């Protein structure tokens, strides 16, 4: 990754390499610490997988005897070992890339669950995030350029309202009003990420089905996150508009479009790109609430399921993905900022 474009004088690239190496080492350390913490913390939660499984069976009408027998089948789970030993086993497997197998679906490796779910989360949250970000930049710029007009008033108030509204409120409202009361969206068909029987393939049917399931949760996600982008972009743009170099650019007779994009827009959006990279990291854990409400089978949905069943390996696997994504995106944000802003580039690599 040539994230820091530097002049290829040997001393500088050497420094850059050492800097990069240091950052990577810190990142690994962070991931290890977080993994260790989650390992012990989730075991401190009340209830364990076996109790919960037995409860489930009893509730389903099984006799106490059956429940105990069935639960005993899970006894290959090494829960009777001391926690420290379990941890060492887990870490030993982890460094070879083995995330273990699910407690609940005993034969299914955690890695398989993640590779099945993660693409849906990346697709749904990723696309919503990009739409939200782009809309935020555009509307924020528009509001700043038309500040103290009706357009600005509408955009700013909309943004503040959306920023204040929690995702679950809007999601439940959508299900209730659009789905149940006005019946504008077929809410029962919208559950999941795909309709039953639709296979992933390169066909119109597949893509339109994907779109149908994606649109409502995506709309909720965009609506509840766009406000933050709008408000930040508006404030940054108003600041940039007052900067000397914008006045000088006008005096230089540059076209307004050039000033808006390369002078105002680029400088105003700089900090937002860093934030975007970090938010992308966090969103890899899936949107817990929205995926749950719409039964969208992403990583967030799976995380809630695993949490309910105290399925430790799956929980650990998902948390590991999230941690790694957050740490990596933090790294990317740093290098991205260095790439976009020449002033930081020098600080990061210079002597």
């Amino acid at each position: 990754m040539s994230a820091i474009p530097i002049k290829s004088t040997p001393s500088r690239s050497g420094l850059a390499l050492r800097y990069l190496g240091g950052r990577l080492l810190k990142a690994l350390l962070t991931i290890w610490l977080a993994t260790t913490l989650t390992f012990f913390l989730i075991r401190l939660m009340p209830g364990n997988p076996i109790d919960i499984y037995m409860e489930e069976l009893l509730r389903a009408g099984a006799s106490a005897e059956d429940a105990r027998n069935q639960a005993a089948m899970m006894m290959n789970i090494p829960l009777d070992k001391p926690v420290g030993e379990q941890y060492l086993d887990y870490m030993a497997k982890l460094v070879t890339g083995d995330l273990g197998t699910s407690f609940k679906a005993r034969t299914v490796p955690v890695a398989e669950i993640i590779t099945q779910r993660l693409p849906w989360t990346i697709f749904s949250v990723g696309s919503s995030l990009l739409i939200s970000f782009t809309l935020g930049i555009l509307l924020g710029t528009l509001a700043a350029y038309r500040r103290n007009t009706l357009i600005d008033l509408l955009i700013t108030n909309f943004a503040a309202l959306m920023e204040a509204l929690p995702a679950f409120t809007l999601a439940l409202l959508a299900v209730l009003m659009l789905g149940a009361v006005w019946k504008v969206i077929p809410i029962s068909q919208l559950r999941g990420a795909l309709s039953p029987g639709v296979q992933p393939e390169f066909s119109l049917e597949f893509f339109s089905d994907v779109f149908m399931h994606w649109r409502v949760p995506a709309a909720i996600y965009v609506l509840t996150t766009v406000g933050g982008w709008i408000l930040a972009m508006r404030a940054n743009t108003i600041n940039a508009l007052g900067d000397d170099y914008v006045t000088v650019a006008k005096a230089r007779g540059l076209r307004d479009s050039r000033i808006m994009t390369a002078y105002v827009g680029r400088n105003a959006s700089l900090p937002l790109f860093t934030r975007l990279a970090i938010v992308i990291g966090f969103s890899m854990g899936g949107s817990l609430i929205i995926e749950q409400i719409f039964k969208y089978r992403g990583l967030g949905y799976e995380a809630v399921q695993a949490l309910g069943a105290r399925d430790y390996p799956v929980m650990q696997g998902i948390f590991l993905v999230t941690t790694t994504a957050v740490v990596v995106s933090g790294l990317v944000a740093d290098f991205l900022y260095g790439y976009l802003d020449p002033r930081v580039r020098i600080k990061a690599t210079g002597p």
Partner: protein
Amino acid sequence: MPSHPTLSVRNLAIEYQTRRGWVKAAQAVNFDLLPGEALALIGESGSGKTTVGTSLIRLLPGNATISAGEIVYRRPVADGSATEIDVRALDAEGLRRFRWKEAAMVFQGSMNAFNPVLRISDQFNDTSRAHGGPRGRELVERGKSLLELVRLDPRRVWEAYPHELSGGMRQRVLIALALLLEPQLLILDEPTTALDVLTQRSVIDVLRDLRKALNFSMIFISHDLALAAELVDRMATFYAGTIVEIGNTRTLFNRPHHPYTRGLLRSLPTLDSDRAEVASIPGSPPDLINLPKGCAFHARCQAAQAICSQDMPPPEEVAARHIVRCHFWRDVAGAARAEATR
């Protein structure tokens, strides 16, 4: 041949809207600038000199309006006549084309005059493209030769980002950029104020050389009379938004006809005169929202008499291209001469 003035300003008045009311930042401003001539606008902070300078390319802040007057710019054409441009009447696109191509402006404290994320070469390129100027190889050559003209090392500066340059370097880069499209008029607003004395010196030297080499007209806005005098042919002293005296640099220096010009001169410490003390002008400038009746300077003027608080003195041409607004210019000029010969 008495050529057409590059710039004629007639009865210019500019007002700022503030919460307290309309600030009359400039009024009844008149001057001509001949081709190749350099004029300094001199005055205290708030005297309206920067406002007038900025209005020439209509880059005033949003709360300011040109309420009256004319700004006429003339571009000479081959047959000896000139194309007139009424700057106040330009539409947005016309104004955009006018700026920098005809009249370029170098601003006070250019520390932040450049887009921090673009290389100097990109900013030259942007400027050139906006006006259909040179491109590609031609632009690089022209840009680099301009950087040499302002005594910068093009190899170091051309591909640099603004933050890699010092304040004085940036100021000179902006001057080089201002000359890229060979404008006829260069406006410099306190171009040396934020710089140390040595850098000031080099910027002034650069400007003097450039003027010799390229022969553009120049408006030099400054509060520093001595610095301006090194550079310009003519000077205009501003007081409370109007020109109280305009004339040749030598005349103004040796025989000021307005008490304010004289006061400014007496406030300069000099090495070559036997004047023992540096004198300041007592009092402070008037409120530009409620200007006093009569001459705006009368409250601070030692030569003031009854009429000064009643009637605004009219502009009087006391010699060729030397105009003064003072009822008692004869007395002031006489006193100045007496002092000079003493």
